[in-house]
Each structure stands twice: as structure tokens, then as C-alpha cells.
């Protein structure tokens, strides 16, 4: 295992300290229990958006804390859901009296830990569960689908609505709507290495890829021979559109998300392929985002997310945001 680290046990603490120091104008860090919150804490009268999940997906979620997006993020150990004490402390710090919206990716660990919060903490709250990964056919399991990169889009759009004063019920409804309007599929060219494990989660041969991979190095649909970007994107787009069933001429947002180890040059090449194929399907890409947003440590690969847009979602996407990882519209 080759990483820019000191001791395995200190990775998370040191990385969060570096993050908080580099973005001291945007966030504040609580080390114990561990959470990152918007600088200044609770905003009176505003619904507080709190997300969290295992670490190793940076900038998700800490990089999305700030004005117009999350009020707090609770980072768990690498690939491990955070614990209820973190969520409770974060809620106490950022609840501005209008309630808390939890944004949770659909993994049993995450779901159970967030569920436990309500057993220890009361307060007005609701939960949006993201489950945008279309790779795994839902019929073959009872766990539902995984929440992956569309979580970024949910956090951005609902974050803007909360900033504009939407109440808890409206935020919850909007979050569910964005999630349902989104589909994602990913591919891995290489495995990630969980530091505590010290070796790759899986072994891919020189000519192999894992189609439909998750963001924890979980296996996906199938392992197959490396194929051209156009063919990979072809399968992504077909699978996502079969799920989303957009109308022809429908407006969409496209997120090409790097898994952490793939350079921008390749991500833009993938975006080019997605754009060509969306055009063939008669879809209009109205908004786009290309970069590393929901990663899986140093894994090489990418995911593509397509979200059907309506006018409200478009205007909320464009609304000002000021976080470490997304920053636009600020005077």
C-alpha cells in the first residue's frame, strides 16, 4: 500500500484537520465527536441539512458543507458509516429551529446508524435516502439500490432550497424528487485500497474492468474485458435511461464523476461520449458537472449520473453555493 499518510489510525484526523485549516473561511471542525459544520453554526429559521457517511469519498460530504449546501457533515471511518453520537452533536450544533433534514446514502450501515439517532435525540427531522445506483437490478436483492453520486445533486439542490427558506417538508419532498429523477452507473478500472486492510479490495487483471461498481470497491454487475469509453458509456446511458424513462427532448443534468484516481482528461473524454449519446437519445443536457465529487479512495474509474431537470431544479442548481468543492454565484 502506497499512500501519502503517516500512521493508518491518524489518516482521518489529520486529513480533516488539513481540510478545516485550508477552508477555515467556510467550515469549522469538531474533532470529538467528529463533524464538520458550516462556519458560524446554526442559521436561525433555516432547515439544517446534515449528511454523513464513511470517509474515502471526498469531497463528499465535507467538501459540500457551506452556504447553499450542507450545514454539517459527519465523516465516519473509511468506508464505515459514522456513529450516532456524531450525528447528534452535529444536529445540536446546526439546528436553527426549523428542523433537520438527514441526507443518507442507502447502505444498511448508514441507514441503521441514522435510525438510531432518532432513538437518542428528539427534534423535528426528516430523512432523504438516496438510492440512485441503477447498476444492480433491484429484483435480485432486498436491500434496495445503493446511494452514490446523485447524492451530490440532491445536496446541492435541496441545499439551495433550504437556503431560500423552504421548510422541512418541502426540503424532504424536493430531495426525494431529485433522487427519483436520478440514475447513476459506475465502472472501476482498478481497485481502491482500504488503509486498514492494506491491500486492494479486489484484483482486476490488466485487461479487466468491473462494470457497475459501487463506491466502496464492492463488485458490480460483472467483470469483463476493458472496452472503449464509448461502449462503457453506452451501457451506462442505456441502463440509466431504461430506469429514468425520460421523454424525448427532456432536459437533464449530467454528472461525470471520477472515482479518485482517474485524471480529468479522461473524465472530459467520458463527458464527450455522454453528450454525444444523450444527443442521440434526444436529451438536452442543460447543466453538467465533471470532476471528482463522490470518490472511492484512489480507485480508477468513473460514474455517470443523469438527472431529469425541471425549472425549479435548474434554478436551484444555479443558486449560489460556497463550499470547498462547489463554489459559484458568490459576489
Amino acid at each position, binding site marked *: 500500500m502506497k499512500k501519502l499518510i503517516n500512521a493508518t489510525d491518524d489518516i482521518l484526523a489529520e486529513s480533516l484537520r488539513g481540510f478545516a485549516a485550508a477552508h477555515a473561511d467556510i467550515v469549522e471542525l469538531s474533532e470529538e465527536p467528529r463533524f464538520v459544520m458550516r462556519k458560524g453554526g446554526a442559521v436561525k429559521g433555516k432547515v439544517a441539512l446534515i449528511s454523513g457517511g*464513511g470517509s474515502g469519498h471526498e469531497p463528499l460530504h465535507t467538501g459540500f458543507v457551506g452556504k447553499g449546501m450542507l450545514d454539517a457533515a459527519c465523516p*465516519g*471511518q473509511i468506508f464505515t458509516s459514522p456513529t450516532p453520537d456524531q450525528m447528534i452533536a452535529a444536529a445540536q450544533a446546526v439546528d436553527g429551529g426549523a428542523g433537520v433534514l438527514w441526507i443518507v446514502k442507502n447502505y*444498511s450501515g448508514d441507514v441503521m446508524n441514522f435510525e438510531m439517532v432518532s432513538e437518542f435525540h428528539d427534534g423535528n427531522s426528516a430523512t432523504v435516502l438516496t438510492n440512485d445506483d441503477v447498476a444492480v437490478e433491484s429484483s435480485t436483492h432486498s436491500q434496495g439500490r445503493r446511494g452514490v453520486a446523485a447524492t451530490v445533486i440532491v445536496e446541492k439542490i435541496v441545499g439551495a432550497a433550504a437556503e431560500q427558506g423552504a421548510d422541512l417538508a418541502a426540503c424532504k419532498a424536493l430531495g426525494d424528487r431529485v433522487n427519483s429523477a436520478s440514475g447513476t452507473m459506475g465502472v472501476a478500472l482498478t481497485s481502491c485500497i*482500504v488503509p*486498514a*486492510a492494506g491491500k486492494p479490495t*479486489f484484483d482486476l487483471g490488466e485487461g479487466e474492468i468491473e462494470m457497475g461498481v459501487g463506491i466502496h470497491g464492492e*463488485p458490480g454487475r460483472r467483470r469483463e474485458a476493458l472496452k472503449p469509453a464509448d461502449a462503457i458509456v453506452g451501457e451506462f446511458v442505456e441502463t440509466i435511461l431504461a430506469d429514468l424513462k425520460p421523454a424525448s427532448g427532456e432536459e437533464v443534468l449530467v454528472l461525470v464523476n471520477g472515482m479518485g484516481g482517474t485524471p480529468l482528461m479522461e473524465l472530459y473524454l467520458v463527458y464527450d461520449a455522454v453528450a454525444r449519446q444523450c444527443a442521440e437519445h434526444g436529451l438536452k443536457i442543460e447543466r453538467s458537472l465533471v470532476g471528482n465529487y463522490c470518490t472511492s479512495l484512489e480507485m480508477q474509474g468513473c460514474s455517470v449520473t443523469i438527472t431529469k431537470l425541471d425549472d425549479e431544479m435548474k434554478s436551484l442548481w444555479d443558486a449560489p453555493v460556497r463550499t470547498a468543492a462547489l463554489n459559484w454565484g458568490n459576489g
Partner: protein
Amino acid sequence: MTSDVLIARLIDLIGDRIEAHASELTELDQAIGDGDHGDNMRRGFKAVSGEKEALANMPFGEALKKAGMTLVMNVGGASGPLYGSAFMAMGKSAEAMPGSRVEAARLLEAGIEAVKSRGKSDVGAKTMLDALVPVLKSIEAGADIAAVRKAADAAVEATKPMLATKGRAAFLGERSIGHIDPGARSSALIVHAVCDALEEK
């Protein structure tokens, strides 16, 4: 053995066994999960070990509850709330050290019920329940300590051909078949440690 001695021995023995098998648990989790189960368990039981003194001086049920809470607040992932809820539920179900086979079975059953309701799951989904429930059955059937150990090990092996329908392995569908469930293995490790403690009596 008095309750305080038993609690202290349980903490030591479970902690040692998890520590010794942490990489094995992680490897099992790498195959059908995300490769953190060993580290999760180790972190959790290290935190419990850190409270050994305090726990040993509590009534048995209280100690279990407190240990469960410690697991919940330190492990995270799926195993944190599951083992945490199990220990908390066991602590609630019995004030004192179980004095009989029947009481021991009741204790374990309470833990199993908590896992089922927390995990919205049951046996056959290729989870820790597929280790814990067979162990409970063997206790209820009057097995001696050696037989309980065997039941645990056999149950772990039996998760291999199962198709996972709960937990992270469920996302693999058919590809989950042929691998041992890491949570079943960690449950068996805990069962072994408990057996060791009871033998010391």
C-alpha cells in the same frame, strides 16, 4: 466466577480473539463487502476494553447495556448498530449473570431479536444471524460447550453457499455465493470467546 470477574474475562477474551482475527475478517469483507469489518470490530472492542474497569464493577445487565452503547458509538457501519443493539437488548433482558442454560438462551435470544429488528432481517440472508441463531438452537437443544463451538463453526461454513439478501453483500446478487459472511465469522469468534470464559469457571 463472580459477575465482575466474568465481565473482565469476557472483555479480554473477546478483545484478544477479534484482534487475532481482524485481518481474516477484513479479508472476508473484501470479498463480498467493503473490507472494513476487521477494523470495525477491533475498534469497537478496543473501546470496550478501555472501559473494562468500569464495566466490571457494574451489574451484569448494566455492563452489557453500556458495552452495547460503546459499540454503537465507536463502530459505525452495519456491525456497530447491530452488535450494539444486541448487547443493549441483552443487557435489558437480564439484570444478573445468567444462572442456567435457559437463562443463557433467553439472553442470546434477546440479542438476536434486536439484530433482527435493527437489521430488518432474519436467518437465510447470509448475515451474522446465520451464525447466532444456530448457536441459540444448539444451546436450547442442550449442547455442551464443545458442541456449541462446533455449531458456531458449522454455521459460519454454511453461510458460504448462501445468496446474500441483506447488508452490503446483497448488492452482489449471485456473486455473493461461495464466500463466508464476515459478520457470521465475527459472531462465531465472540461465541468462542464466551465459551472459553465459561470453561474457566
